[in-house]
């Protein structure tokens, strides 16, 4: 099965709105990280980019650790 990893699945990606407003001083003065226009975009701490979570992953991709549901 082919997996197309996305930035949204990467450990370096962070799109928590509270965190984004703290990370970009002044953003909440005339806009908001809770707005529809952001469309879940977030930052990549590895490459220093602002990206949508559906962007195809790069060579630095590191899968985020999630609780797995074991398959019987």
């Amino acid at each position, binding site marked *: 099965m082919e997996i197309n990893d996305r930035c949204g699945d990467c450990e370096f990606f962070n799109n928590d709105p509270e965190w984004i407003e703290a990370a970009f001083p002044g953003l909440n003065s005339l806009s*908001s990280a*809770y707005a529809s*226009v952001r469309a879940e975009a977030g930052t990549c701490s590895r490459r220093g980019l*602002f990206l*949508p979570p559906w962007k195809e992953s790069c060579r630095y991709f590191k899968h985020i650790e999630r609780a797995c549901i074991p398959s019987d």
Partner: protein
Amino acid sequence: MSEHVETITSEPALRQQLGWSELWKKEDWWAIYLGIGIVIIALIAFLNGSTFIKSLSINPGGLKWTSFSQLLSHFAKNYQLYILQLISWLIIFGISTRVLGISTSKFIPSFIVLYALSIVMFSIGGWANASKYNLEPPLVALVIGLLIANVIPLPKWMDAGFRVEYYIKTGIVLLGATFPITLVVSAGPVALVQATVISLITCLTIYFAATKIFGLDKRLGAVIGTGGAVCGVSGSMAIASAVGAKKEHLYTSVTLVVVWALVMILFIPFVAKALGLHPGIAGAWVGTSEFADAAGFAAATAYGHMAGNENAAIQGFTLMKVIGRDMWIGIWSFIFALIACLKWEKEESGRKPDAMEIWWRFPKFVIGFFVASFFMTSITASYSAAQFSKVVKPDLIAPIVSLRTWAFIFCFLSIGLTTRFRELKAAGWKPFGAFTIGVLVNVTLGFLLSVYAFGHYWMNLGK
């Protein structure tokens, strides 16, 4: 490997797309629920002859008081209504921000401070000599908010209650209820033409100034170009993610937009006043040349007060900014995403953007504006002009306008209270130069189109 696949497929990519949960995870939708909810409650109260909403929408802005004793007696007489109003705001904003993920324990004290300051702003606006000294509530709120934020070290957690965008979006949906849909249909296309011409020229000016004159990165050019031409920080955020810009590009745009937006809030109303512009024309000019909804409403409302026709200025601004510019942000993002993918990222084998991104980035609160406008126009169409003036206007429209004004004052104060100049990142003189060239082109062109090309349309507003 199979275990890896299981991990991905057994759990949805939580951070990729919100899907249906956007309906409760985005403030745009909450602004719609609150705005439409208030309109429906006001309508039910009106149809049942109840004065509940009318009483609850109290504000001291229209007192025209000449002595403190008059003002104090107003509060002494109505303090229970103000307490009830505060509790109502706390409930509706408190619950919704809680669902959005904002801490209630931070929101409540912060909002109480905001409410108390708003009472002060309304009281200043309600002073009989306020307009004589240009003490327009939006401008006073902005300046006092800026002073507090930059002189008194307010704790950062208080930003939880200073939700600029949430309040302005709620106010815009409420504005829709007093905005005839017929006006949207008749003047909307003109606004769209003017806004599109100026947005294109401004964006291209900033982009080419940034990339060709100052030799800046093309992604930075796109981010600040859209910030200056379409929708300020929100536009920059959308484009930054569409083109995969650097974080520094967004920092730069935030700083440039915030600084220039504050300058424009003061510049346009006073220049318009000096030139004696019709408030509809000035509103259209603000809508063309201001960068963000919140800042633009502050400027348009302030000039509307100065010129004695707030309605015309707000209508001109709304047509130009909300309908002419905001709605198209998703399309701008899509176009830039296409350019980034097909031209800038060839070597990175970038994925073609999905047309659905237009919808994902669409500022959904605009839907609430249209629904409220259509709904209330349909309801009030059955009343004669005389009935409308005698009954509908004071008992239904006026309370909605008052609640909208509250939402706007919360927003104007919050702009100031969240703008801490010491925290803004340095933008650099090259981006500042490129952006400033765009601002000059935008303001000049916006003035020419608003006054000379389409002025006859905007002069008919507010009647």
